[in-house]
């Protein structure tokens, strides 16, 4: 690699040389910039650009670029290589203090995974105050960003500004800024419900089978009553289905129940989620969550709507319907005394009676 002694070895015509060198540096940078962003340049790539006369000169030029923060030295498979930075970034980096540069370096190394403040402190041996101060200034310069880790919710992770945080720290497509994106989840889950409904249910109108059944029913009843005796009591007590006067949603005759994959395909083709990649496993996560919410039911790998009869009120159980079931002083209530069934205000209200006054 180039050293000061080598540079000192270029004796005469210094001014001219430096202008020439500056030119060559620019040429080399521009050549590299033609390649797609993020390209790694190995020594042979740079030689092939034929900017430098010889290897020594190339080494000098590259070192210049590195010093100017225009190039970032790296290694790939044990071989040295370089990556280009934009001129603006380089400009910013040049203005950093050495401590800031050190932190930047470590943050850069962590790439999309990000690095935890505490790890930064350990690696740099700086005081917490210094680290915080530097990080703040790096953030202000738009060089780095911080995100809260999803894996370790208490950790603040730092990574370079232009990078997208990895899934490990930022979570899947349903998360943003370290937390679940409730609005997005809400929207997509509603759409999922609509899609499943469209695919697997039919709406049945009240008079869909307008058969006059009163006569037939009366006839059957008469028959049954005539046949009734003690041993032959009806197996089931007579029951009249309530008359439906509202359209009802019922499962279609031979429904093709959707899977996570088929639903994902439809969601993607609807184009409602932009700049996020949703994989099948993400879709499954959402659908399984909806199962927990009681909105969907899972049958094998397929999903269907949890259809509930609309004409039955969702009954609680006998315990929680009674005053004691939701009583705030349940644990204090005794067989006698100030709080007891005799003095209970909740029972009095429930039964419309008076309680004993204590």
């Amino acid at each position, binding site marked *: 690699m180039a050293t000061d002694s080598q540079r000192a070895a270029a004796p005469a015509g210094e001014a001219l040389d430096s202008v020439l060198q500056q030119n060559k540096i620019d040429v080399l940078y521009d050549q590299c910039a033609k390649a797609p962003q993020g390209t790694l340049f190995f020594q042979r790539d740079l030689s092939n650009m034929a900017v430098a006369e010889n290897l020594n000169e190339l080494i000098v030029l590259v070192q210049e670029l590195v010093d100017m923060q225009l190039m970032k030295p790296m290694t790939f498979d044990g071989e040295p290589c370089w990556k280009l930075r934009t001129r603006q970034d380089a400009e910013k980096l040049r203005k950093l203090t050495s401590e800031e540069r050190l932190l930047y370096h470590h943050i850069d190394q962590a790439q999309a995974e990000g690095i935890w403040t505490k790890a930064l402190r350990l690696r740099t041996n700086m005081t917490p105050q210094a680290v915080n101060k530097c990080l703040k200034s790096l953030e202000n310069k738009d060089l780095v960003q911080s995100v809260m880790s999803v894996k370790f919710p208490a950790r603040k992770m730092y990574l370079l500004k232009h990078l997208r945080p990895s899934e490990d720290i930022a979570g899947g497509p349903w998360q943003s800024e370290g937390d679940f994106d409730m609005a997005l989840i809400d929207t997509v889950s509603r759409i999922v419900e609509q899609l499943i409904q469209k695919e697997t249910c039919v709406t049945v109108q009240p008079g869909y089978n307008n058969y006059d059944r009163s006569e037939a029913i009366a006839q059957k009843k008469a028959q049954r009553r005539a046949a009734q005796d003690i041993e032959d009591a009806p197996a089931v007590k007579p*029951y009249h289905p309530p008359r439906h006067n509202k359209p009802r949603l019922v499962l279609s005759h031979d429904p093709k129940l959707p899977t996570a994959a088929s639903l994902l395909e439809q969601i993607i083709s609807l184009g409602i989620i932009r700049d996020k990649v949703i994989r099948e496993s993400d879709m499954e996560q959402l659908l399984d969550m909806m199962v927990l919410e009681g909105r969907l*039911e899972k049958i094998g790998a397929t999903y269907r709507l949890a259809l509930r009869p609309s004409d*039955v009120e969702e009954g*609680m159980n006998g*315990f929680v319907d009674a005053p004691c079931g939701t009583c705030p002083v349940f644990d204090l209530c005794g067989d006698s005394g100030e709080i007891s069934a005799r003095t209970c205000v909740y029972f009095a209200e429930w039964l419309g009676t008076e309680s004993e006054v204590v």
Partner: protein
Amino acid sequence: MSYAQRETPILAELCELLVEDIYGELAARVFSVLARHGRQTLSALNKASYLNSRQIKHGLVVLIQQHLIFHSASIEPHAASYEIDWQQAYGLVRYGRTLKSVEERFGDKAANVMSNLITLGHTRIQDLREAYFPPHTEESASGEEGANGALGDAKANGSLFVNGDTGMNGHANGTAPPKLNGVKRARPSDEEEVDGEYEDRVEDKTIKSVAELDSIIYHLMLQGWIVKVEWTQYLGPGDLHDITRQEAIESVNEGKLPHGTKEKEAVAYGILRRKREIRDEWLNVPQPTTRKRTSADSDLSRSNKRQRLAGPNNWAPRDDEVIVLDENLTIRANPEKMTVALRTDILVRLVRQLVGHVPATVYETMLRQIEANTPRCYDEWADPPPADTAAMANESVDARFLVTSREVAKNIDPSIDLLEGLDPHGIVLMTYSTSHVDKKGNIVPPIDPFNLSVDARARLIDKHITAIANHPFRFATWHSRAGFSQWRIDFPEIALSLIQHEIETTIAAGNERDKKYGVKLIRALKKKGKLDERQMGNVMMMPAAEIRSVVNGLTVRGFVQTQEIPKVERREAKHSFHLIWYDRQRAREKLLQDTYKGMVRALQRLKYEKETVAGLLAKAERTDVAGNEERWLSKGELEALKKWRGVQEKVLLQVSRMDEVVAVLRDFCGPLVSV
């Protein structure tokens, strides 16, 4: 020991209230001494109570007659011990329900017999016959005042529970004395009932002859609702265990105390087998004798035919014969059968709520068919399941627990519109109808739902069964193609879902947050086991802070537990995993005890309410007033009486609904292994 036999203070309190209400103070005093002190001999009982020995004996007789206590007189004749049968004692709360269930299944007369049997406790056939047809007062045999009403003076008179209906039918019998052959019950569907018909029905409920009575009892025995009384039924769980253990040691281990795992296991299996044998023997119906039919006997041939199908060895009396039961046979109601019926009712209600009306009726038909072959909800003395599950999978399913769609099509109430709740396109296909579905989704021309072939009905029914089979609770499981398709009902699995459902329902009743997220959290934990906060977030897809508040709420209510596992040596909240988990057995137990407590409070309240109208009730029950309330009571008194009856009905209905919660939590499966 049975899951229901475990005693807890609150259960003891509940049972004491029930005993006092039904059998009076003396029995209750003895009961409560036993409840407080556990198993006691007579002399110890004497010491522990302020009662004299005559009183104690009197109380014990009542309790024994009703099987509310076990005793060891048969094995320790000189110093018999007494202990409470908690299952039976709690079962007092189900008496009203038992009558209703029997009435629904076997009609009014059967309910009438059952009601008397329950009132009397265990009874000799001859005594029961005499109660109906007293030898000396032949002429009053069919009047309400006479023989059929002779039991009205029984101890249970005026009780809240034995007196039939706990208001489930929307009609409280109140405190009127029970009229044995004429208990008026409003049926849920008698909107078309006219008065004239009602009179006929009352007539119909009267049991007219000993032959008819015997036939009804015999039928109820075949169905498992009535069992004979055996001395082994009096043994407490400990005594029964000792006896069966001794027998098992004799039979499988040559009388030597078992050594080593292998012998111990063999004896353990032997004990279980012996207990099952003893218990199954209770259900054996002794074959009755017959006599020639006389012209006085009503037409019982229909029941003969039915008994031929259900009876042991297909035995049944010939058509020109009637059954005569052994007059010395002692019988009692079988509480285990009640629990089976209760399970049916609860499952049907749930399907009605969760799937729909028609599937619920279909399910009811299926369950009732299986009921006859189901002696109990689960076998607490079953052999432990075989270690390798392959062997279990191969185990053939008992054909008596299978139901085909075709059988349902034949048995279901014909007035049910089986088309309801189905896709019209499917209806047309399944009925092979020439109708079609128009653009608006209507079937044209309409299909007569009550004039379908059995095949079409079986197909429709199968569709409804599929709906309940696909529900997450797996109310039914497809078994084979027999009889269009054959279904099995996996009760143990369903029992677990029911417990979970009951817990979820209770959680949802907490507050808005619990309703929205508490249930979701419990389901997540049930599915995934222990989770830390981050995993919790990924499953529930909710912000950590919000989850934390839900967790806190449920921890306070005792439904979830949290655990801190330090990651570093110092124990610091920041450096620990916080695991959250949900122990279903623990939640089940907590909710069960709370429900007992809810029942206690409701009954205490009812007792208090009754005190406040005691004077009025005494007046209303006076013989000259009862039946003529309008004439003797003032308007205000009538109002107050009506109000009291409303209060009583409301509270008792609630108690009986709490009993359903208890049944779900306690009676349908044994203790769960905690995660």
